[in-house]
């Protein structure tokens, strides 16, 4: 009976509930708790604005993800382009009427939330590409037409985000898109060609960079040159992480954090604070949780019968991996400082919303893994 209904895709709610990926759900919940505690630590051990707001968002978005998980995978496939177009529209809106904060016009005011469409674009681009390649024939993928359209899909939002200006997010959008393109089967040589092209055009790009962006790149190569200026963030971050040691300074005892030596400790540098307080062991545990999440998402993708679901899961897993890697490399002084949040951990509604939408599509893939899409 069960087998029959499963094949036909007609399952009861109870069956859907049972086929949820509980390991993944548990990991997300654990991350939510860890991030809330970390946020509590950044507030100096008091229940202040950041903590309250982060917990509230996590609860709302987690429930939203749970509910959205029961949407049929076909829905996501059907609305794939629409989703992309809406986010692109929001990006255009942001660049026209957006809210400017710290020199960058990134946010749109949606009355109930100040949304950062560039964060949503990180997911939308994956959905859009997954839909595009779901249809495409393998032998037509490397056609001129089939190369040009994805290029346009990718470049358009990147240009919009760069002009905000927000170099970090645009790089991450680009990386998300490129990974999906590569996974979909685009010939490796095109990546090499464009890579070479980028390298050649680098000097011209640098000429267009804002002074603070140039400074950040220079600082990355030599942070000690200006320890109180641009190099301050990297140095202080390394001090915090390094001083954490094996077991860390203890919860709420991270001196670098509560004495305000850490910059942007709620957002991009949340891992620094976590690592200072919980040390190498804590950091490994956090990495392990992320690892499990990524593994689960890939596994769900493997078992998905629809190419859309499979490609989305693979793409999403890889994107999350990239976000984590970029963020951690940045605070560890391995990459220049570019704005990039740590998924779920960092303070920020748009990033959390985007990540949760991603997870709900993954869950939907799991629930409807036998579902085929025409």
């Amino acid at each position, binding site marked *: 009976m069960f087998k029959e209904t499963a094949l036909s895709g007609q399952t009861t709610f109870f069956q859907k509930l049972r086929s949820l990926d509980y390991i993944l759900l548990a990991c997300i919940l654990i991350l939510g708790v860890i991030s809330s505690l970390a946020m509590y630590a950044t507030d100096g051990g008091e229940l202040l604005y950041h903590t309250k707001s982060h917990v509230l968002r996590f609860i709302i978005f987690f429930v939203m993800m749970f509910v959205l998980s029961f949407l049929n995978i076909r829905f996501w496939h059907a609305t794939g382009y629409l989703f992309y177009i809406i986010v692109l529209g929001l990006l255009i809106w942001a660049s026209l009427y957006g809210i400017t904060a710290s020199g960058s016009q990134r946010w749109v005011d949606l009355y109930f939330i100040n949304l950062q469409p560039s964060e949503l674009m990180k997911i939308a681009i994956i959905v859009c590409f997954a839909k595009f390649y779901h249809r495409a024939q393998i032998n037509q993928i490397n056609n001129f037409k089939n190369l040009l359209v994805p290029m346009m899909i990718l470049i358009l939002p990147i240009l919009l985000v760069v002009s905000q200006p927000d170099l970090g997010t645009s790089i991450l959008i680009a990386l998300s898109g490129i990974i999906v393109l590569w996974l979909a089967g685009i010939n490796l040589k095109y990546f090499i060609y464009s890579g070479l092209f980028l390298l050649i055009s680098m000097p011209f790009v640098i000429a267009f960079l804002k002074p603070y962006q140039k400074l950040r790149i220079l600082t990355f190569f030599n942070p000690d040159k200006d320890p109180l200026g641009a190099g301050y963030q990297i140095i202080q971050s390394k001090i915090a992480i390094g001083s954490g040691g*094996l077991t860390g300074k203890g919860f709420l005892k991270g001196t670098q954090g509560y004495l305000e030596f850490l910059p942007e400790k709620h957002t991009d540098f949340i891992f620094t604070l976590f690592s200072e307080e919980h040390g190498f062991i804590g950091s490994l545990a956090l990495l392990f949780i992320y690892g499990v999440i990524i593994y689960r998402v890939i596994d769900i993708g493997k078992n998905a019968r629809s190419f859309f679901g499979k490609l989305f899961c693979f793409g999403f897993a890889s994107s999350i991996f990239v976000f984590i890697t970029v963020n951690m490399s940045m605070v560890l002084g391995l990459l220049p400082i570019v704005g990039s949040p740590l998924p779920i951990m960092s303070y920020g509604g748009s990033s959390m919303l985007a990540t949760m939408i991603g997870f709900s599509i993954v869950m939907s893939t799991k629930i409807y893994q036998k579902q085929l899409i025409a």
Partner: protein
Amino acid sequence: MFGGGGDSGYKKLSTVNRRMFIMTAAKLVIFGGIITRLFSLQINENKKYLTLSDKNRLREWRLPPVRGDFEDFFGNKIASNLKVYQLHVVPEQVEDFRYLMIRLRDILDIDSKTFKKILKKRSQQKSWETLIISENLSWDQFAKINFYLHELSGAKPVLSVARNYPYDEKFTHLLGYVAQASERDLTENEVIKKSHVPGLRVGKIGLEKTYENQLIGSNGIQRYEVNAYGKRINQIDFVEGKKGTNIKLTVDTEIQAQCNELLKDKAGSICVMDIYTGELIAMHSSPSFDPNLFLYGISHDNWNEILNNPKKPLINRSIQGLYPPGSTIKPIVALSALENDVISTKFKVNCTGKTEMYGQTYHCWKDTGHGIVNLRDALKVSCDTFFYEMSRRLGVDRLNLTAKKFGLGEKVFNGTYIEEKEGLIPSTQWKKNALGRGWVLGETLITGIGQGYMQTTPLQLCLMTAQLANGGFKIKPKIIYDKKSDSYEKIKAEMEKNRIDLLSDFQQDDALVDFSSEKKKRDTDLYKPLYRNQENVKFVLEAMFASTNEVRGTSYSSRISDKKYQFAGKTGTSQVKKITEIQRELDLDISQIPYEERDHALFVAFGPYVNPRYALSVFVEHGGAGSSAAAPLAKKLFKTIIDRHEEREKIREKSLMEI
């Protein structure tokens, strides 16, 4: 069924699976890289970053060290510390410096001159250096500041300690004084540099400077955790500083105070010494000034008053003042002549008031002359004519040796006072070296009455008298009390052991104090005889007794007949200027001579005459005759000195019991 179906679909799937596999492998490698980096930062370099993190969050505030006290022999504090309230501002930490300053000016009621001075000081120092707005807030001001403190962000009321000299001007020259450490103090003294805090006072002169390193103490340290903006969050650690060593002196405050009283409105010096232990009982130089004035930066008016005073208060006359000793040298001249067998005690000279030698006329102080005098009489009445003849026979070089033996012409405290002067006892060799000319025989005559090139400090004369009075033994003068130093009884016994009645000529070189080598710097000669024949010393002391206690003696009018206080002394009146024939004719009264040209009055003495214990020297600059200006002061002082003796011995016994 798969978007495209069949073969193509399968190929598409296998591509995506293969690429995902590669991707996963890459992910593992990159995660490995991140873990390696974490490991290297958190495990390998943990110590380095832990130190950096502590350096970030911990700031040390050094508190001013508490200076050691000075106390006198009886335990009275003569230099100590007071708690004072100060107001500090670090301009760098102030948002609106000008506003703060104007507010402070109104609250503290700072006058415009001082205000300008503060602003000037601000412009001369770096913005992170502490600016001291007020060194010594009154309680009223302190309370007011604390009341308004919430609107005076950046102003820091600080509880500090300041030097205090409760006896005002009485010990100024003896102790020296402290003032704000200068750039030079910091570069010259490592210890000061190490414990320096803004506003630190260090010794500028005297004992305060010499014993700086013992007195200074160590800083207290407050360790605070600060946030990224330098704001103190909480105190982590407090290490109390160690107060500097208290230094006990041998001086007696009461006698010192009397010296100050006796020399009031005069320029001069009084030194009192224990003739066995070498302990300095008093040492005062007049005029003095209040060292407390220097604590908070002396005002311009006060400074000018000190600087322009014609009597020069800044000079410590006891050790820095060089004056011809005049007739106070005569006991030494007499001793030298006897020791060298130049004359016998029976040798006589007829004094007619003047004598012709080497084509020049040399005058005795008494125009009418003393008639026929022997050595005892010559000392008693201070007959110059006798001493001219005796010195002529003695020669300056033999006199030089004896004088130096007894402590003239060299520093009494070697190194205790950086400002101490050596003085000068001339010799033929000295003149050749220093002036490039040969010794003129006439110069020997005036050297014999303590004039000419000879220059001594009042303290040297005191030491000379002490070493004569104890029977002619070498002692070690000291001003810092030391429990472990030899007691009077031990020294007396030691001297008794070293006593020689008469040395035969060939023994002389071995037994006598050897001044030709560096040996004199050491204490090996301590308590050894400075004479050859003890009878000679006894003779001179007896003659000094006559000078004070027999009719016609120069200090007869200052005598004390009570045996308990009876003392013996020698007056001196030293000329500042050569007396011309016209002046001699005029014989002016002292008040008719301009101050700068008046004679110096001197007096050296020891007492009580039977079993003497103390020696003193009195010097009154441009005071006139020693008999009338200096000796009467000694009379008053001796009563106190002897009266204080018992008290002093009691304290000494008590402190010995404590060991």
